[in-house]
């Protein structure tokens, strides 16, 4: 080789630097021209750059879509929360409306009633055991006492059998221990309505000679002094006259749906009898 090994690096460096400087100087003078090699490189690089940019744009779009979906999920969660809240509020309003309607019914009953009444809320119901009773949230501090009649907008519920200061237990008219003096509205025939559990009640001591028909309305007669006269007890569902017997067997369906009772009225009479 012409150049000694020791100076080869310097020679290469010198050549390359001179070449690059020459190119630089030439380009600086003739800026506007694009050289052939440069055009070739641009031609080669352009599709690759385009492909990379398309891929990156795709990734960018996916990322943006992901961010959008994350935002959407959050928004969805927020809307669900708001919807649940609104549903809850709507439910409260609906409950309030229904309560208002029931109370209006009770109020209507109260207004046409010559006795003082105390409205109470049903706080417990025990209709499955031997005794069919309700627990209400008013007691002796509200003027309630044992023996008072309890009504709803539909009719007679029963009578109070236990009281404390702020709660009372009501024996339902369908309990087997319940006996209410009753009369049939159409024929005025009098008897005693005894509770019969789930079957409702039986109207006893009605003579075979009395004409009683299914659908006849049964009212309280007011004889014992517990229940004021004329309160709705129920309607006759079935009548049977057995051979040889003195009285008819009359089945009565109670007017009140005890499964749906929420508010009741306790009727405060002047001197109610004891238990």
């Amino acid at each position: 080789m012409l150049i000694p090994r020791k100076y080869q690096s310097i020679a290469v460096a010198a050549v390359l630097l001179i070449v690059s400087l020459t190119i630089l100087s030439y380009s600086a003078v003739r800026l506007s021209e694009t050289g052939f090699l440069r055009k070739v490189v641009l031609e080669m690089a352009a599709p690759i750059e385009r492909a990379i940019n398309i891929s990156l744009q795709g990734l960018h779009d996916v990322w943006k879509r992901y961010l959008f979906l994350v935002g959407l999920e959050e928004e969805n969660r927020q809307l669900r929360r708001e919807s649940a809240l609104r549903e809850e509020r709507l439910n409260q309003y609906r409950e309030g409306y229904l309560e208002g309607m029931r109370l209006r019914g009770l109020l209507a009953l109260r207004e046409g009633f010559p006795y003082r009444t105390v409205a109470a809320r049903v706080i417990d119901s025990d209709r499955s055991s031997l005794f069919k009773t309700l627990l209400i949230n008013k007691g002796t501090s509200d003027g309630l006492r044992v023996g008072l009649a309890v009504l709803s907008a539909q009719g007679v519920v029963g009578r109070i059998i236990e009281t404390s200061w702020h709660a009372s237990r009501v024996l339902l008219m369908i309990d087997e221990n319940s006996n209410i003096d009753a009369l049939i509205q159409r024929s005025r025939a009098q008897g005693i309505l005894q509770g019969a559990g789930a079957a409702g009640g039986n109207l006893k001591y009605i003579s075979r000679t009395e004409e009683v028909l299914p659908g006849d309305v049964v009212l309280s007669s007011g004889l014992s002094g517990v229940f004021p006269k004329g309160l709705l007890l129920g309607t006759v569902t079935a009548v049977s006259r057995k051979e040889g017997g003195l009285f008819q067997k009359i089945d009565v369906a109670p007017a009140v749906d005890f499964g749906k009772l929420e508010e009741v009225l306790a009727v405060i009479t002047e001197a109610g009898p004891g238990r």
Partner: protein
Amino acid sequence: MIYYLLLPVLLLMLVIAQIAVLDIFTLGWISMEISLIVVIYAGFHLDALRGGILSLVLGFFLDCLTSAIFGLYQFLYCLIFFLSMVVAGRVYAGNPALIAAFTALCTILEGLVIVLLYRFLFGADILAALLRIFIPQALVLALLSPLVFRFFDRFEGLLHAEDTRPARRV
């Protein structure tokens, strides 16, 4: 021979990746000039001819694909390559701190040369760009250079792993 055939393709890919992909990570704020680290690595590991051609080709591609004056990067990369060669003969190239410091120095040198060239050729005063662009770029490249050097060392090791020929007697 394969080196000279593969070199342009690989370097073109590197430059395209650098321009199209890496700049996204810095949001165009600074340029992730990995090609400069490649030139410095070549200065530390390759002979004058191979490294010189690599620097020239790399500079050429960068000149083609950026809006710089044609020949600017060819000149700069040749200059930095030979500077690296000179430094490589005097220091231990395995020290990451030294690599990082030298890379930062070369980046600032590159910036200075560009500022001076623009000043002399076009009368443009872009000194502010040195502070705004080249100093942050020097810091980023200084941090990246030990990693890139390690990557190239591994790559080189893989290339030579299957070369079982006995060493030539010099």
